[in-house]
């Protein structure tokens, strides 16, 4: 069900370190990312890092946590921290999701990656997203056009990295 981008240029100067359109003929490329809705954004998660997608897991909030941490869940007998993807990418709040999901994915740098849950409003499809040039090291690696839509490409390796200044994850602004 892979759908490819059209290779068109962005029609607006969207913020972000990069905005890449899929090359013509990219429909023959294999799917590389899972597209999910998070607030008003569509985010692309590297498919190699996604372990499974499940209906939104029941959460146990942790008092005093940052808003990005929605709480702890249980999955397969293991504890799983679940993060709010929309907050991580600074997405404007969208409409109430009808089928929210938890994406279970590997996050963090390769030497200490861990499983986390990413709460998203919907899982959309898998698609080919063209490689992005190296960006500034934020949680959003860049933006790409996929089937005419701007998607925020998420760098899950940055999730566990210490935030500059000790704050929350380093997503770029809206």
């Amino acid at each position, binding site marked *: 069900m892979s759908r490819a981008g059209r290779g068109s240029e962005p029609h607006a100067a969207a913020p972000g370190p990069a905005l890449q359109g899929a090359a013509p003929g990219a429909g023959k490329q294999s799917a590389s990312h899972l597209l999910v809705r998070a607030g008003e954004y569509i985010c692309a998660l590297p498919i190699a890092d996604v372990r499974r997608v499940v209906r939104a897991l029941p959460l146990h909030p942790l008092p005093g946590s940052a808003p990005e941490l929605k709480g702890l869940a249980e999955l397969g007998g293991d504890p799983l921290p679940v993060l709010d993807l929309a907050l991580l990418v600074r997405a404007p709040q969208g409409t109430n999701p009808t089928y929210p999901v938890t994406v279970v994915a590997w*996050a963090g740098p390769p030497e200490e990656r861990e499983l986390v849950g990413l709460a998203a409003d919907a899982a959309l499809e898998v698609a080919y997203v063209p490689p992005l040039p190296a960006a500034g090291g934020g949680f959003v690696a860049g933006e790409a056009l996929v089937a005419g839509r701007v998607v925020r490409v998420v760098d899950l390796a940055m*999730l566990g990295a210490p935030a500059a200044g000790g704050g929350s994850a380093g997503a770029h602004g809206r």
Partner: protein
Amino acid sequence: MSEAPGSGRRAFVLWRRGGGLWGIAHEAVKGMARHGPVLDSDRLAPIWDSDRLAPIGGEFELAVGEAVLPADEIVAVTEALQVRPPGAALRRYWPEAACGLAVHQGSPLVLIDPAAPPRALVAAGAESGEPSHDRT
């Protein structure tokens, strides 16, 4: 429990507070109170030896180090926890010290650090080291 405390396997006291499930190494608990006199660890030995303490309900307090931790419910004393270290994501977004994460009967829990219990769990204005006595 099949083994006495200190014989190798670690036991944990689990309690519920604020809708969440929490755990702590049982040897860190100095005392426990339930609207009455403090029960010290020696008197609690029969409880430690039970494999699972049925939820009793009511208000409890755990004395942990210099802090008093209110509990809505004592859920269990158990050795049957697979403790996982807290990952970077948790450390980044939860500014409290945690010794690990685990699951007990389908509910995830945080094993807290006795030396630095989460502020939200500590009784307001109560850091005396002993639970309050003889409350009615």
